[in-house]
């Protein structure tokens, strides 16, 4: 019972901000050109290499998000739909939620590579994977990062995680809430600029678990 309350509060914390902002939602959109026509132009301008054809399948959530310049413009129905699709998509590690290896997580957080391909010179190796998190976030004190996303200094402390409570059911709920954000950011922040790392398979469930451990673990440099 207590578990559920904590879970709900956490979900509320994350999603609450979203709903509060979008009171006067109204879709703004020129209908002169149809989305299909735009997709057509996009497809003829991008390589048809069969290895990457899958990248051009726009999913329902991407379709919705393409329609609005910001979250504030989105009608509640569309917001809910994106959240719903995203929550449904979340998969967990085989053993459920656990404390992973923050050092492994750190490697993924630090690495900018993965998925960048071009025939003209510089491509990532097919197995390279990274979250490129520093492009958008400040994470460890003293390491330069971007400002597109929020500052994650002391992120585990912000969630109130300490050595003493880290194995409590509440802490595990928190681990899960952050797992959900990294696995599919749109489950908490619909249409965020933050990629849906686990959903697309850029990172595996265990990778995500390690990344979340890195963000929350009391021993991790994030929380020093």
């Amino acid at each position, binding site marked *: 019972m207590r578990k559920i309350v904590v879970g709900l509060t956490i979900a509320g914390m994350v999603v609450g901000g979203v709903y509060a902002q979008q009171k006067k939602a109204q879709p703004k959109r020129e209908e002169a050109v149809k989305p299909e026509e735009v997709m057509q*132009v996009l497809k003829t*301008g991008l390589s048809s290499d069969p290895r990457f054809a899958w990248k051009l399948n726009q999913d329902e959530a991407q379709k919705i998000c*393409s329609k609005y310049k910001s979250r504030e413009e989105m009608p509640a129905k569309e917001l809910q739909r994106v959240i719903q699709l995203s929550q449904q998509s979340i998969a967990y590690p085989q053993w459920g939620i656990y404390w992973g290896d923050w050092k492994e997580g750190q490697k993924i957080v630090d690495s900018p590579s993965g998925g960048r391909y071009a025939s003209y010179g510089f491509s990532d190796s097919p197995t390279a994977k990274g979250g490129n998190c520093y492009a958008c976030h400040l994470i460890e004190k003293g390491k330069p990062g971007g400002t597109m996303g929020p500052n994650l200094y002391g992120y585990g402390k912000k969630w109130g995680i300490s050595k003493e409570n880290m194995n409590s059911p509440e802490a595990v709920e928190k681990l899960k809430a952050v797992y959900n954000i990294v696995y599919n950011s749109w489950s908490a922040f619909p249409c965020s*600029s933050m990629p849906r790392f686990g959903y697309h398979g850029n990172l595996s469930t265990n990778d995500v678990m390690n990344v979340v451990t890195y963000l929350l673990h009391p021993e991790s440099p994030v929380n020093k």
Partner: protein
Amino acid sequence: MKKRLLLALFTAGAVAGGLLSTKAFAQQDQELSPEEEIRLVQEFNRMLAEGVNPGEVWYEVGKEAIKKYNLDKCDLGLGPGNFKGAMAQLPRYFQDAGKVMDLETRVGWCLQKHAGMKPEEVQKFVKQCWGKSGNCMSEYDAIIMYLTMESNGYKVNVNLKDPRVKKMYEIGKQAFQTRLGPWDFNCATCHAGKQEVRIRATRLWSVDRPGEVGSAVVIFPKYLVRWGLPMSMHYRYAECIRQMRWPEFIPHSDLGVALSAYLYGSANGTEIKAPGIGR
């Protein structure tokens, strides 16, 4: 005088580079060491202080290449060989091709018409220095540099009253918003919003802040100190699209034209000042 000296230096470098095997054309590095970064910034500052922009070397080479490839017959919309101010009114609709084209797409079309290149040859010609750094001289980049610089001082004036141009503008505008690919990006992820953001150390321009599209596009081709070559607009599209983890961008495609129609259309009134220079 200074220009001549630069040209001579450059050519000597290119020749020496060529002799040193293809290794001289190193891959463009993603991550630079801090020392390398500092050296580049110093070199960049020096070039700015001296008012030297090596991009101008490409102008001279471009002038020759125009003759070599019969492009004095090329019509950019103001008549064959009439290049002064021509860039400023692009993209525009071309009757002979039956479509809207931007500068680079039009040059590709002219290379087919007047230099007898096949479409595949044009693609190779365009990309000859892509992904390379260190004294790579591309006649294509030179042609684009020459043609753009012939419009320096002119104000961008894309005719959005022409419904065919306006349509490409609208497609470009929506393409800019389209979320796609395994990283869910659209162009707006990085180039929209009132609030200024940085991706790592780089400050990003935004379509939502007045004047910023204009100042971003009028400096192209932009000379990049770290690669030692000028980057054309279609190369810029390709690089952003690579970062977005989309499949590779095809230069001279309608996608390129649509993006240009949107970006240059939004830049109307801004004075062309090529080449820009950046780290």
